[in-house]
């Protein structure tokens, strides 16, 4: 019932050929289709629906929208009522608005990011199929990412002006979409300001993250790997492909994930992320990171801020 998981990310890219090459050769996704407008759709090998990334040609980088899949078609009507009751306008986009995709409930998060919910997307199966499947396919490229894991969105935080879109999104996702909070960063006098929120619907530590910044944007899109060994290999793949690595392999305190941050050819930040961390459950106590420890939460080994990680987002 309700939201199951992240379904797809629509990402704006400035050079389509370079973007497709990056998502195929570095991340290891496969192109599954292209629409009349020239948008390209890709999936990871262990995903079963037709696409998890839509690349959209644009004159700027950034996120167009993020979509989450709900279990039943009727969930869309129920969620529409709850979202509208919270004072958020919605539009039901008809089936076929995106290829191979059913009707989509479109609305804006309190932070201004466009979100869509859908129940149907063409199922094409994983690369190993479902009948007596092998553990992995033979034709993996690059990092061989298994699935689009989560997105982290930059939300406006300006406490002096009374603006905290991180906290507003957290409240909205909790009250309207039944997401749970797994971890948070609190800052300011007495830790009174919720400056970052990590939320889940499934059993991973997060399906979406909200990070603070001066204006809305996307901080990163994250792709799942199985192990630390695969994270190291992914970094080798990036170096071989001369991909700009933002943060070399390390561990997060928050979510316990093992990570690399890097940039796609349009400057959108990607992450390869390994480790399921812990079993996220609605009754699990929320982990809270305080201001003096927030960089230990983000980069557990160094415990320090890195300039590009804070300055660059799209």
């Amino acid at each position, binding site marked *: 019932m309700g939201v199951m998981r992240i379904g797809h990310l629509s990402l704006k890219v400035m050079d389509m050929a370079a973007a497709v090459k990056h998502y195929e050769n570095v991340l290891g996704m496969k192109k599954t289709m292209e629409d009349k407008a020239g948008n390209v759709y890709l999936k990871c090998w262990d995903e079963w629906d037709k696409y998890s990334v839509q690349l959209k040609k644009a004159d*700027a980088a950034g996120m167009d929208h993020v979509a989450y899949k709900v279990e039943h078609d009727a969930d869309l009507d129920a969620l529409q009522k709850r979202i509208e009751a919270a004072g958020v306008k919605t539009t039901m986009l008809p089936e076929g608005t995106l290829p191979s995709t059913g009707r989509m409930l479109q609305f804006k998060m309190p932070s201004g990011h466009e979100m869509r919910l859908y129940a149907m997307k063409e199922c094409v199966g994983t690369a190993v199929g479902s009948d007596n499947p092998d553990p992995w396919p033979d034709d993996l490229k690059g990092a061989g990412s298994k699935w689009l894991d989560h997105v982290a969105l930059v939300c406006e935080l300006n406490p002096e002006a009374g603006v905290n879109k991180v*906290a507003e999104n957290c409240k909205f996702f909790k009250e309207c979409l039944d997401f*749970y*909070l797994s971890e948070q960063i609190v800052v300011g006098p007495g830790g*009174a300001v*919720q400056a970052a929120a990590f939320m889940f619907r499934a059993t991973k530590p997060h399906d979406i993250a909200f990070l603070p910044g001066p204006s809305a944007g996307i901080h990163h899109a994250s792709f799942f790997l199985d192990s630390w060994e695969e994270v190291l290999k992914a970094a080798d793949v990036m170096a071989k492909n001369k991909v700009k690595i933002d943060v070399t392999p390390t561990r997060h305190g928050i979510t316990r994930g093992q990570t690399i941050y890097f*940039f796609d050819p349009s400057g959108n930040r990607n992450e390869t992320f390994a480790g399921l961390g812990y079993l996220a459950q609605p009754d699990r106590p*929320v982990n809270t990171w305080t201001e003096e420890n927030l960089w230990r939460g983000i980069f557990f080994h160094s415990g320090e*801020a890195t300039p590009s990680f804070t300055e660059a987002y*799209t």
Partner: protein
Amino acid sequence: MTNGVRHQVRIVQTGETYACAESETLLQGMARIGRKGIPVGCLNGGCGVCRISVPVGQVRCIGPMSRTHVSEDDEAEGICLACRVTPVASVEIDVVGKLRKALTFNWGAPGAARGPDASRIHATKET
């Protein structure tokens, strides 16, 4: 290794100078030898942190720059991203990026820094 003609780059704000090959961008040329002065972000024209103007000399654009950070008017005035331009002559550059920092907090007077939902954090912790 980079080959070919090199040009002197001077960063007006810091006085820093370095030699940059025609085959690399102003930002790559600076970062590769460990110099500082221009903020380094995505290196791919998307994030805008390396926004510069070029009052002296000439550069060549080698890839798309996000219109969020370099408008058509900006471009006409010689504003560009250091990660997307290579030198074709000796250049002086002015760093004009407005650094917007995520995950960085400058608190004002105690008590002033409160978001609208600050009170609910404690409620959330109890769930």
